[in-house]
């Protein structure tokens, strides 16, 4: 079958070429050439014990700025693709039932759905704030915090029966906010110009504080931008999808 043929075609040259380094050894090129600089200088240069955050937001900050832009781009394109005015040639059963605004949440009341989730949501949001602001000390960072906020909105919209969703963002407003996130990120870079440095050079930020503090200010501002971008995008995609999908409860 095609799958077996494909696997054979790919594995035969794989065995022939001995190209990849063994997995564990510390002396293999990727572990010795550039990464030792990151490991040794993460603390004193970027003031962040979490080396992964240092790599993401300080050494390779240009990557992550365009990464957040990709998220914003995905959010807008879902809005755009869903924004056509459908001339229904193929009537789907959903048309004949009045679509309630509950978004498919079951009508029946249960203890865990209504009570528990409403109590858990603020805890998740607090945890998201913790993950955001401790990005460089412990694990976490912008993406994780933004995704957590997005997940709280998703949990609330899908599970709890409310007439108005908690954040009540229209599709347009949440897309605009999702755009604001990466702009904050780009703005911190532009502010570094004023301080006379190159783009995203945190120790040239114009505030007269000790250089290590400047790095943490830069990193926190950038993480806030990433969080707003990611959370806004997830909320935008969710609103756009839910608006067009005709939910009905008794669907088999």
């Amino acid at each position: 079958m095609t799958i077996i043929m494909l696997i054979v075609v790919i594995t035969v040259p794989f065995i022939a070429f001995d190209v990849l380094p063994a997995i564990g050894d510390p002396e293999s090129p990727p572990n010795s050439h550039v990464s030792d600089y990151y490991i040794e200088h993460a603390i004193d240069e970027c003031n962040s014990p979490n080396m992964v955050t240092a790599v993401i937001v300080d050494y390779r900050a240009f990557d992550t700025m365009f990464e957040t832009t990709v998220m914003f781009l995905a959010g807008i394109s879902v809005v755009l693709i869903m924004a056509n005015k459908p001339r229904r040639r193929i009537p789907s059963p959903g048309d004949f039932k009045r679509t309630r605004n509950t978004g498919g949440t079951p009508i029946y009341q249960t203890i865990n759905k209504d009570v528990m989730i409403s109590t858990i949501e603020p805890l998740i949001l607090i945890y998201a704030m913790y993950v955001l602001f401790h990005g460089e000390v412990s694990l976490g960072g912008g993406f994780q915090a933004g995704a957590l906020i997005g997940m709280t909105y998703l949990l609330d919209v899908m599970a709890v029966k409310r007439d108005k969703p908690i954040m009540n963002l229209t599709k347009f407003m949440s897309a605009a906010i999702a755009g604001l996130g990466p702009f904050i990120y780009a703005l911190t870079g532009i502010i570094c110009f004023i301080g006379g440095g190159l783009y995203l050079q945190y120790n040239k930020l114009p505030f007269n504080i000790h250089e290590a503090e400047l790095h943490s200010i830069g990193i926190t501002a950038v993480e806030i931008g990433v969080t707003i971008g990611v959370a806004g995008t997830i909320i935008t995609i969710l609103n756009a999808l839910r608006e067009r999908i005709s939910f009905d409860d008794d669907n088999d």
Partner: protein
Amino acid sequence: MMTTINAFLAAKGIYLLTLILLSLGAAGIIVCNNYMKKLICMNVMQVAVIFFFLCFGQKTGGTIPVALSEVVKASEYINPLPHGLMLTAIVVSLGTTGVGLSLLFRITEKYGTIEEDDLIRRENKTKTGEKE
């Protein structure tokens, strides 16, 4: 006995499994008749590449890349660079999935089906009445 398995896995085994996962994902995109299954197989392929990239950062006996006060030598920590890169790749795969799903919804709305063969048949039918 354990060390020989370990040695084989370290040199070639893990890469072989990743390669099989990748080729399965690629084969799934080609073979599956349903468009949503193609999207899932696309995600599988992206996860396989992310795992492939993370394999390079491994160090036997290294701790997670968060700096502890007493551990100083560089060979103690796992390489942080692939992790930084792969955060980007994961978020890109979420973006692509979101766009793919909204495209899928538009296809279902217009042609009523997401099976490859029905879709091509209905596409050719509408080609005669093409206005645009």
